[in-house]
Structure formats: C-alpha cells, structure tokens
C-alpha cells in the first residue's frame, strides 16, 4: 500500500495543487484511494455505487481544496467528504427515507451480548488468500446494520482513531466506542467458529451460556 507523504509533504502538495498543478493532486490522493473507496462501500455496499461516489468525492476534494485549513488531518477531511457524499447518494436512492430505520439514535444502541462461546484458535494469516474466506468476511461486514458497519470499517478496517471516527461520522466518542463493541461482538458471532468450524478448538463450548 502506498505510504502517505508526511504532513509537511502534504502541505507542499496542497500548495502546489492550489497553485494550479493538477498532477500534484494525483500524488496527494494516491495513498488514500483505497481509504476513499472502502469508506464509500461501507455506506453503499454496492461496488458500482461506491466507485461513483469515491470518484465524485475525489473531484469534490479537488475543487474544494483551497478551503482545507489543516485543522484536521487531510485524510480525515477527505474521508468526511466521502462519507457525506455516500450518505447523500443513499438518500437520493431512497428519497422517502430521511433516516435509515435501522440506525439507532445516539445513546440508544442498547446492549448486545455474545451468543457463541467457541474457543477460537489463532487464525492463520494466509486465511484471506482464499477468495471464499475473504468473501465470507466481507459478507459478514455487510450484514451489520449501517451504524455498526460504518464504525467498524473506519476504526478496524481502515485504522482511524476513535477520535477521527467520531469526527467523520459526527457522533460522540462514547457512541463510537459503544457501536464498536457491538459491531465487533456481532461480527465475531457471525463468523464463529469459521466457515467450516475449523476456527474453533473445542466444540463443546458452543451454545453454552455462562449465566
């Protein structure tokens, strides 16, 4: 994966783009292409829509670049634009839905407790070389409700901090943490104990509840 330039390098690239050098924009955003695409698909789920939105978000970032003041990191600013574009696209596609009925309001996420207590063995790192297993993981992420999927994708897939995730999504840090907990527990239950049971060490812990 391409490494982003240093903050100073980025500032210089931004200055050059604003000075009219379009090629410098390509250099500036190249390291963030996947980040932008993954953010778009986390909202839209559909690869074709995600590509459209990711491209639109990049073009918007280009035209609005002079308004970037450096108060947040460039990557956070770029992802915020992408997230907003993706949400707008979603609303355009479903004009009668102002808010997803699935989305919990802040502070109303409720509790979710684990359902599966299979003992997991460490998963070998080459697991995701196999298309089938990678797709199972992507489907499991897709199956999460939007509020949980978005938090998980920003924090765990993309490695944004809790604070950056909260900025991008426009929700408080405690809400990010609550949703992250729930997303991780749900994903674990969905995946446990692996596609063919091969991820669990001892079957007898399944479906057992400790209370």
């Amino acid at each position: 994966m391409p490494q982003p330039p240093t903050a100073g390098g980025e500032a210089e690239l931004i200055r050059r783009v604003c000075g009219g050098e379009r090629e410098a924009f390509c250099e500036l955003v190249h390291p963030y292409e996947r980040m932008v695409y993954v953010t778009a698909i986390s909202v839209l789920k559909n690869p074709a829509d995600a590509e459209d939105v990711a491209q639109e978000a990049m073009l918007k970032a280009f035209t609005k670049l002079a308004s970037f003041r450096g108060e947040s990191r460039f990557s956070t600013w770029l992802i915020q634009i992408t997230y907003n574009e993706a949400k707008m696209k979603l609303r355009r596609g479903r004009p009668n839905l102002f808010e997803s009925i699935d989305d919990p309001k802040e502070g109303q996420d409720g509790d979710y407790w684990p359902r599966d207590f299979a003992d997991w063995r460490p998963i070998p790192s080459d697991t995701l070389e196999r298309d089938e297993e990678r797709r199972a993981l992507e489907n499991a992420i897709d199956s999460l409700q939007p509020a949980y999927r978005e938090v998980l994708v920003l924090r765990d897939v993309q490695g944004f901090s809790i604070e950056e995730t909260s900025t991008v999504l426009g929700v408080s840090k405690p809400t990010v943490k609550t949703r992250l907990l729930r997303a991780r527990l749900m994903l674990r239950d969905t995946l446990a104990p692996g596609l063919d049971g091969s991820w669990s060490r001892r079957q007898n812990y399944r479906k057992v509840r400790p209370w």
Partner: protein
Amino acid sequence: MAEIEISCVEVWREISNYLEQDVSPELRARLEAHLKVCTHCSAVLDGMRNVVGLVADGRVIQMPEGFGKRLYKKIEELP
C-alpha cells in the same frame, strides 16, 4: 489484595475498550483476573481479537482495478 470480582456482563461491556487498551489500570487488573479463570470470556476476547486482526488485513474489500487511472483522467478533463 484480591481484585474485586467482576461479572461476565461487565467484562463484555469493556472487552472492546480492553482491546483498545482504553481502560484504567484498576479495571484492567480486574478484567485480567476474570479472563484468567473464565473460559467463556477469554473465548470472546480471543475471537474478537481474531476478528479485528482479520478485518484489518488489507486484502479485505478490494479496490476495483483502474480506479486511479479513471480518476486522473477526470481531473485532467475538468475545465
């Protein structure tokens, strides 16, 4: 001194923060004391750690090919 006991439900509530290393030293000690003896909670923790490790793998959610090329063409074509 023995750590004050903590229930499974309390452990689950904090398990994601624990993975983030975002708990106080006192809470951390109580969680670890519980995890050491509770196979269910340690299975939840191990599974969650595995899941977090898996999704962070760059191979999950792949980019469409030619994304960059299409973007740079659009940028060039802007008026």
